[in-house]
């Protein structure tokens, strides 16, 4: 029983079992959280924690991307715009207001707001066009921003912006970043889960399936899409700001990196587009994998080839991603099992009533709430 099926309302099944399953789930999640929280205290190797911070940032980024692109079906390849805006906001703020140490973190909310504000005109233009045009528009806007970063003086041009020196213990340097990234990640995942079960999320997913029909039924499609876009931008900007401080500098091509959207999209696709846990899984697998690849193949280009092939493989072989495919397999296994039992019962009592002419039980995987 997934959390979403809790949202299915007063259910047909046995309430006691439901509560038991929920309790197990909640316990599992808490244990996981505790483990993750203690991670940097146990594994103090800076290299390991650096990868961990990177991973967490991408977990949150993938989850944020999914809140918009996964749920609405509008694939955005321009989220790097928000990431870069966030990074530059913190950088420029720290530079111009001479902030150092922990006070730099105070700029993070500003980074998020800036990104969300950028999302408004961006979204108003981009969300009016059809889906395939939308992708291209996001790419175009991305390039506009990258070019602006290169050309404006306040962004530092080709030299970018450097972070102020840090004032805490270099030994546990990564820790504040780790915990911040973790907090943002958990919050984003939680938000994603909330949205999915909510009215807002339902409208988004209806838009994904049939936007015109949804609009015809009274869904305010532009508003809904723009809201999701802004929420997604907000988190992505937040992460960009954090990332900037973590790697201590931002350049036009690093803040506005074409590979960013591609990686995030790949993570979401691998794990399962439009699910809550999919992007998380995708990031958890891909970030360390990417790290591993760049180390194994000192030849940069080979790692690029492998990454591309991996991407291609995921799209061709696992188009729906790991989580939905796995969930389907489990459900069909369960259905077959209970089908056998039900079949025996039905044979004894006669076929259940149903609309004339229709089979009495949906054959095959009658999945739980939509593609989990």
């Amino acid at each position, binding site marked *: 029983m997934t959390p979403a099926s809790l949202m299915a309302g007063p259910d047909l099944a046995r309430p006691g079992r439901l509560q038991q399953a929920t309790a197990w789930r909640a316990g599992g999640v808490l244990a996981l959280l505790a483990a993750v929280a203690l991670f940097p205290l146990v594994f103090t190797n800076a290299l390991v924690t650096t990868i961990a911070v990177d991973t967490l940032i991408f977990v949150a980024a993938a989850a944020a991307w999914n809140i918009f692109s996964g749920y609405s079906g509008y694939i955005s390849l321009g989220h790097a715009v928000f990431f870069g805006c966030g990074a530059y906001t913190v950088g420029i703020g720290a530079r111009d207001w001479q902030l150092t140490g922990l006070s730099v973190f105070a700029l993070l909310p500003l980074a998020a707001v800036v990104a969300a504000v950028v999302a408004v005109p961006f979204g108003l*233009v981009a969300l*009016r066009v059809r889906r395939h*045009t939308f992708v*291209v528009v996001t790419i*175009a806007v991305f390039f506009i921003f990258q070019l602006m970063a290169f050309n404006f003086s306040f962004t530092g041009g080709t030299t970018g912006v450097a972070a102020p020196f840090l004032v805490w213990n270099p030994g546990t340097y990564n820790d504040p970043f780790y915990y911040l990234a973790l907090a943002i990640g958990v919050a984003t995942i939680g938000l994603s889960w909330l949205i999915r079960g909510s009215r807002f999320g339902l409208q988004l997913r209806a838009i994904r399936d049939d936007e*015109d029909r949804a609009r015809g039924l009274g869904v305010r499609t532009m508003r809904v899409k723009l809201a999701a876009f802004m929420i997604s931008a907000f988190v992505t900007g937040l992460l960009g700001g954090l990332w900037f401080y973590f790697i201590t500098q931002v350049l036009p091509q690093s803040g506005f990196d074409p590979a960013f959207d591609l990686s995030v999209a790949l993570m979401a696709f691998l794990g399962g587009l439009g699910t809550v846990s999919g992007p998380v899984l995708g990031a958890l697998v891909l970030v360390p994998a990417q790290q591993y690849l760049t180390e194994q193949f000192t030849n940069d*280009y080979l790692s690029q080839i492998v*990454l591309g092939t991996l991407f*291609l493989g995921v799209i061709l072989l696992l188009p729906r991603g790991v989580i939905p495919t796995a969930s389907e397999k489990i459900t069909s296994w369960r259905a077959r099992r209970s089908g056998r039992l039900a079949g025996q019962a039905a044979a004894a009592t006669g076929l259940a009533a149903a609309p004339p002419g229709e089979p009495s039980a949906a054959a095959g995987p009658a999945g739980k709430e939509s593609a989990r």
Partner: protein
Amino acid sequence: MGRQIYEAVVDGVLVGGVYGLMAVGLTLIFGVLDIINIAQGILVILGAYLSYALSVHLHIDLFLGLLITVPAMFVIGVAIYWAFMRPLRGRERTSMSLLASYAVAIILEGILYWIFSPNYVQLNAWYVTASVRVFGFYLPYIYLFGFVLALVLVLVLYLILYRTRFGRSVRATMQDQTASRLIGIDVNRVAAVTFGIGVAVTAVGGMVYGATSGGFNPNSGYDLISRLLAIIILGGLGSIGGALAAAVFMITLESVVSIWSPNWAIVVFYAALVLVLTIRPSGLFGRQAVRLQ
């Protein structure tokens, strides 16, 4: 000043014609297959490198080399379609093909980096450096030759589309795949060949690009594809005339703006796209966004 603008416009039109050819290939692929081929940019670069290899290692003239590279790129196009695009099914076909072609682009870029290294190279021939006085100023021959060739090819494409049976099949498939199947058109074959043609034109575009860009390397693919995408969207997805017009228009615009500021010229390019889309979401000549039923 006036003179500079005049030169910039001529330059823009001539180069725009070549971009137009490549954009036509891209928009044709979309019109028939509903696929946005992000790999088109890197394929142009591949075409350029092929011409480079033929020219430098086998001393084959660039234009003559096209006799080899065009069929080669055609085959590559068909292969890419067959292996990576055709298997994609389902409701999200267009998004998935977009990502798949993006993946193919990354792989190709990596391969090109591996084989040719990131060093910038340039295609050379007598007509690249030698200029002729035409239209009132000195222009390298390659611009003229390239433009003429691009125009000829667009004409050939037009003739194929509107005067041959195959072309009719292509146009039918563009309008309605199911109906086309019902009247006996082998839609798969049409799709594969169209993709092949769409890619084959990049051989020509690549050669001209390689000769006139002042140096290219595998990374140049990004710049190319973003322009091509902007062009076909502006012209209207699926509209061949639109792609051509948009190409000439935007490249000329960029060329003129770069008199004042080369850096900002490219921003104008994209800004023009965004502006047009705000007013007319389906592009200049695009089919109106059709409401389902």
